[in-house]
């Protein structure tokens, strides 16, 4: 990335896209116990995909597998650029780890790992702080921010890595309603810039607000997927119907 690119939004006209991401029969087992089985799914570029399901259904696991944090024990991933784990993707974990240094240094850290020059990094950090209204707290220690501010920083740090696709694991599960609204607005703005979003949630209101596509997991299996409107209007499986109605499906 040259200094000239810093002023632009996330446009990659000349770089081959890493999306769509295709999953074929992906599974993950610990010993003989399968935690995720036979998931086949396509992550389409420019969409917001919400992975839904009860606790323990395998949502986080699916995201970590897509991100490349862990390797599947069966099945395969196909990124469109053919690489096993492309750089142009980022993830915000359910409990993101902020480094014990300032807000600005947290944003700078992954940029330094990617070998950006000092001046490019300084420009990108300044731009990121500005973009997310974090400028006033740039020199504050990241660990002393409030929960909502920490999550904003975690998303900002991921954004600064210029991902084509951003994986978000329960991004608002620990936040109050106003902080949740800020995070959802951030996610929508990412989406408006063309960043593909894959997000897990067990918050149905959030799923309805953000989802364009839905993947519904039940006990480690992907049992329903498709456009969000159709899913919420008429779920095909009894499990999904029960989940949407708030019934117990164990």
């Amino acid at each position: 990335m040259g200094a000239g690119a810093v002023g632009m939004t996330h446009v990659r006209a000349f770089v081959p896209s890493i999306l769509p991401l295709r999953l074929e029969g992906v599974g993950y087992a610990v010993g003989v116990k399968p935690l995720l089985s036979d998931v086949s799914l396509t992550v389409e570029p420019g969409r917001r995909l919400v992975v839904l399901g009860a606790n323990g259904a395998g949502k986080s696991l699916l995201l970590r597998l897509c991100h490349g944090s862990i390797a599947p024990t069966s099945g395969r991933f196909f990124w469109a650029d053919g690489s096993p784990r492309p750089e142009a993707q980022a993830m915000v974990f359910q409990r993101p780890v902020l480094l014990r240094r300032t807000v600005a240094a947290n944003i700078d850290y992954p940029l330094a790992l990617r070998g950006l020059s000092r001046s490019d990094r300084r420009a990108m950090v300044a731009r990121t702080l500005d973009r997310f209204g974090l400028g006033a707290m740039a020199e504050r220690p990241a660990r002393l921010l409030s929960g909502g501010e920490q999550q904003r920083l975690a998303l900002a740090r991921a954004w600064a890595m210029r991902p084509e696709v951003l994986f978000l694991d329960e991004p608002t599960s620990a936040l109050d309603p106003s902080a949740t609204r800020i995070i959802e607005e951030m996610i929508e703005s990412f989406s408006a810039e063309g960043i593909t979003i894959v997000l897990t949630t067990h918050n149905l209101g959030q799923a309805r607000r953000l989802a364009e596509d839905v993947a519904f997991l039940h006990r480690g299996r992907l049992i329903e997927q498709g456009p969000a409107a159709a899913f919420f209007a008429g779920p095909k499986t009894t499990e999904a119907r029960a989940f949407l109605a708030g019934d117990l499906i164990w």
Partner: protein
Amino acid sequence: MEGPFATAFGLLLAADPVLMQIIGLSLRVTLTAVLIACLIGLPLGAALALARFPGRGPVIIVFNALMGLPPVVAGLIVYLMLSRTGPLGDLGLLFTPEAMILAQVVLILPIVVSLTRSVVEDIWAEYREQLQSLGAGRLRAVPTLLWDGRVSLLTGVLAGFGRASAEVGAVLVVGGNIAGHTRTMTTAITLETNRGNLGLAVALGIILLTLTLTLNAAAWGAGQWARGRLG
């Protein structure tokens, strides 16, 4: 006999050259040993926390056990290495401050390695997936983990300093307690006690304790400040 406190203050106020020389040498030996032990022990401990290799368990056990190595034995090992017939005998280091530094490095390196390993292992468990996600491999993670563990690691370094400044066995065996050359506060205390010169011995003891207390207070203050400042 005037009281030991009076003796201590008298010597300090007069800036007694012999006393100043002893304090200076003690600090030089111990601080140099701590510095060398940190330069080796911090990266080694972190590497031990992150690396997985056959025999890792026994290596950890050995370092843990060596934390309790009797100073006299550490001194003896260094003595055998540096003595005229030993493998490093040609260097002619025996009965020099450099030999004392070496002996104290042997003594405190296991403390720095073991505590670093323990601290870094805990941080690694928390950071691992996040650092990997941000693009840091194991090797690149080492400086990050050491830096983020800096407040806890200070405790390990202090423990090393405490052990080195308090021990007498190692510096006595390899240094020889030669007046004006290798006499430290602890070896001087031993000697003056044997001579029945208790006033001077206690005075030296008070000075040693005060130094240790001051250093620990400073480190504790720095740790508290860092915790409040860095979270």
